[in-house]
């Protein structure tokens, strides 16, 4: 028997500046749609309607307008950048539709008509900075792309680091897509910071990591690098040697050792090829479609208010572990993880939270006092003293 059809909008820029990532996200959405449609536990089938705004911000508005008017969709999965999401929010709010947003973002937003499935800043930047302060350094050199993600991540970093008595040694910004990185690499080699915090995105980040790796080898230096956006497909693009050793914060790594993830990765490879690796944004898009399908099933309708209610607090054992929507702010409970990039385009996870963490998009629960370390200087001094020896 043929299942009744539900139109589903998918808005991803398969062309334009972030086509690679958006392509991964669309692939994941379509994979989830196929799984829902084949699964007898769902008594409906999604009919995906694809739109490609080509990375043009204004085109997101018209793409969604078209999906709502022409295809009669009530639910849209999509958007990667905050600029595109901000274009879509007015139209989903006005027409009472729901946008399922897969990507992590910088926070400070909470629309009733968006389900934020990507990580909030308390899931990404906060645990990463805590790890840096506890285990690496309290003084850090920042390099990032000149846009809202970097500005906001660096602000949080600065607040936490200064509460812990550390310093931001420098904050160097590159325009999006810029690959002339030599001046920054030279400054880092000259100043030898204890850590580099990298919020560059795309080609800028790849060029920077390659150049810093080469320069560090020449100078016989090893400077720890931290990122809260690096993912598996990027490691491959950066190249094996330069991509190794980056400490990365994310709610998903392909190497998560759980039954759901192993099965997900196997299905992914069966569908996309054995050398194709799912990444955090792709997996999160898959989770979006699955959360939506489960909420529709529970609600027995596609009506937005009913689906939103059905999604709230309803646990889904996803590849990244248990995920559920917090009705207080429409963001998701997720498990933060830290990993180190290793040869073979993979991440080795060395820490994860004990349980999924409540989303805090406004970082209103961030307790800066908890980072203060009165004995940090004494410890560091002691460590340094161990390296000193009397030379006669």
């Amino acid at each position: 028997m043929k299942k009744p059809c539900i139109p589903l909008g998918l808005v991803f820029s398969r062309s334009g500046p972030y086509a690679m990532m958006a392509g991964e996200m669309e692939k994941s959405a379509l994979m989830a749609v196929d799984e829902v449609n084949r699964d007898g536990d769902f008594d409906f089938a999604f009919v995906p309607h694809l739109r490609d705004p080509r990375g043009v911000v204004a085109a997101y508005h018209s793409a969604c307008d078209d999906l709502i008017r022409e295809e009669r969709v009530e639910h849209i999965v999509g958007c990667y950048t905050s600029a595109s999401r901000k274009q879509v929010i007015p139209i989903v709010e006005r027409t009472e539709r729901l946008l399922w947003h897969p990507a992590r973002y910088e926070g400070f937003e909470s629309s009733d008509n968006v389900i934020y499935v990507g990580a909030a800043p308390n899931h990404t930047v906060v645990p990463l900075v805590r790890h840096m302060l506890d285990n690496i350094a309290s003084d850090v050199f920042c390099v990032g792309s000149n846009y809202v993600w970097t500005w906001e991540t660096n602000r949080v970093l600065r607040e936490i680091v200064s509460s812990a008595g550390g310093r931001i040694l420098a904050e160097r910004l590159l325009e999006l897509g810029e690959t002339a990185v030599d001046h920054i690499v030279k400054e880092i080699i000259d100043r030898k910071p204890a850590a580099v915090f990298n919020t560059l995105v795309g080609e800028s980040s790849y060029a920077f990591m390659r150049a810093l790796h080469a320069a560090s080898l020449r100078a016989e230096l090893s400077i720890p690098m931290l990122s809260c956006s690096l993912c598996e497909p990027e490691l491959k693009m950066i190249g094996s040697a330069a991509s190794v050793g980056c400490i990365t914060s994310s709610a998903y790594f392909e190497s998560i050792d759980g039954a759901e993830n192993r099965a997900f990765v196997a299905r992914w490879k069966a569908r996309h090829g054995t050398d194709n690796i799912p990444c955090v944004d792709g997996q999160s898009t898959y989770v979006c479609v699955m959360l939506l399908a489960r909420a529709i099933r529970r609600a027995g309708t596609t009506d937005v208010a009913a689906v939103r209610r059905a999604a709230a607090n309803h646990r889904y054992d996803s590849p990244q572990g248990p995920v559920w929507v917090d009705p207080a702010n429409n963001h998701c409970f997720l498990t933060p993880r830290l990993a180190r990039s290793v040869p073979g385009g993979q991440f080795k996870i060395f820490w994860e939270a004990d349980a999924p963490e409540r989303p805090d998009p406004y970082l209103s629960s961030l307790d800066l006092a908890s980072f203060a370390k009165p004995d940090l200087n004494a410890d560091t001094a002691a460590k340094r003293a161990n390296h000193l020896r009397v030379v006669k």
Partner: protein
Amino acid sequence: MTRPSPFAVRGRRALMIMKDEREIAIVRRQLDRLGMSVVETDPSQLLLPRDDVDVIVLDADLIPIKSDCALSRKINVPIIALIGTETPSRLKWLLDLHPASFLVKPLRSAGLYTALVVAFDCAQRRIDEAAHVEKLEDRIRARRIVVAAVLQLIRAHALSEEDAFTLIRQTAMRYRTTIEQLSAEIIAVGGMPNRTSRTA
């Protein structure tokens, strides 16, 4: 001079520093309805401060504006900020511009009039407060002169400090001048001047 009422917006000039065509259309249409004139500027070619406008409508998502001469802190024209991203890092830049009021995007026809009234009122208060502060600063600067005049009277008339100051204050009131002005005259003539006419 009577002050312009903040509610009277007709005839005032607005400068729009915005990029989004839909938002520009909304603001322009509403300003037209209010009888205001509109100047548009390309955000990348901005040359400010300029005095030929009464209010600036600025898309806060455009800041930081590259040409940093633009929108210097000294600008007296009130700024209405259009807020898209509410992240503190961006709001910090906005605070550096001392916005007089704001609107949250997406824009609607409602709200702009309130934002204008608040901005004009805020601008007038800033002018009043600046004048008040200047007056207070003048008085602080003149303290030295008042002290010198008090000492002069203490020496010349063998008065106590309290009596000398009371004499200056009462004389200044009688002549309808300020304590500072009278003190300057006391120092100039070496004693209490013999006034026959009121100065004010």
